[in-house]
């Protein structure tokens, strides 16, 4: 049996594509602003088989978010549907069924009721609908994870704007154009976390130190 999961750990099962990068940043910022610890498959260094690493990550997190909003077939040259997200959701459901007290999973979509057509076996599961927008992701994160003294959605959006406005600099510092790279993910999480303190101090009227 693996060690108990991180009670703040959230495994993010999201599409790694450029059009999704703003929502990806929103997930990171939003989770950090709620005092959660986001995890991404790309953060784990090589060694084991990819599926084994992903499964370990799921086991290490108390929660997971499975964003099934990208159901469209990917663009040319080889147009194929994406099966990674449903596959990882299936692994998570199995893990949760076997150990209900160790994991809770959430399904996210951008379009209401579409999941009933794309994954009808999930009927009875109410997905969080983010409308494909940053505000939607932040709003729904706040709906899914409540916390005393959590920031408001506009406050979270301010942090998002700040982090997203610095994304190019983060990419260039890490010598990549891929926002899903391990080093970029780490830096985005670190920055988002370090902005929690100033926002909380400001909210409570205490001057930031």
């Amino acid at each position, binding site marked *: 049996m693996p060690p108990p999961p991180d009670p703040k750990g959230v495994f993010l099962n999201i599409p790694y594509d450029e059009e999704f990068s703003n929502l990806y940043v929103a997930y990171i910022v939003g989770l950090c602003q709620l005092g*959660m610890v986001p995890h991404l498959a790309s953060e784990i260094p090589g060694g084991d088989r990819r599926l084994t690493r992903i499964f370990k990550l799921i086991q290490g997190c108390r929660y997971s978010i499975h964003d099934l909003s990208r159901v469209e077939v990917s663009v040319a040259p080889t147009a194929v549907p994406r099966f990674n997200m449903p596959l990882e959701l299936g692994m998570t459901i199995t893990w949760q069924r076997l150990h209900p007290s160790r994991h*809770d999973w959430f399904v996210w979509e951008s379009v209401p009721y579409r999941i009933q057509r794309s994954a009808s076996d999930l009927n009875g599961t*109410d997905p969080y609908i983010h409308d494909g927008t940053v505000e939607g992701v932040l709003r729904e994160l706040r709906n*899914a994870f*409540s916390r005393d003294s959590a920031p408001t959605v506009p406050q979270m959006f301010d942090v998002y704007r700040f982090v997203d406005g610095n994304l190019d600099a983060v990419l260039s510092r890490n010598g990549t154009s891929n926002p899903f790279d391990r080093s970029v993910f780490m*830096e985005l999480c670190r*920055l988002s976390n*370090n902005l929690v303190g100033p926002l909380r101090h400001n909210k409570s009227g205490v001057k930031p130190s």
Partner: protein
Amino acid sequence: MRKRIHITAPWPTPEEVKKRYPVSKASEKAIQILVEEFKAQLSRQTEASQNSFEPEKRRKRASAA
């Protein structure tokens, strides 16, 4: 009915964050600068919103007198 979780786990400490998300020295320095920039931005916003309430406060004080 959607699941809603109330989180009671303590907020991550700076040490926890540092350990959990290791970054290069250059990135660490850049992040420090950005945090200061963000704090300054917040202070400016707070000041601006306080100033925008000033005429209202003056009006109230005047009517009370």
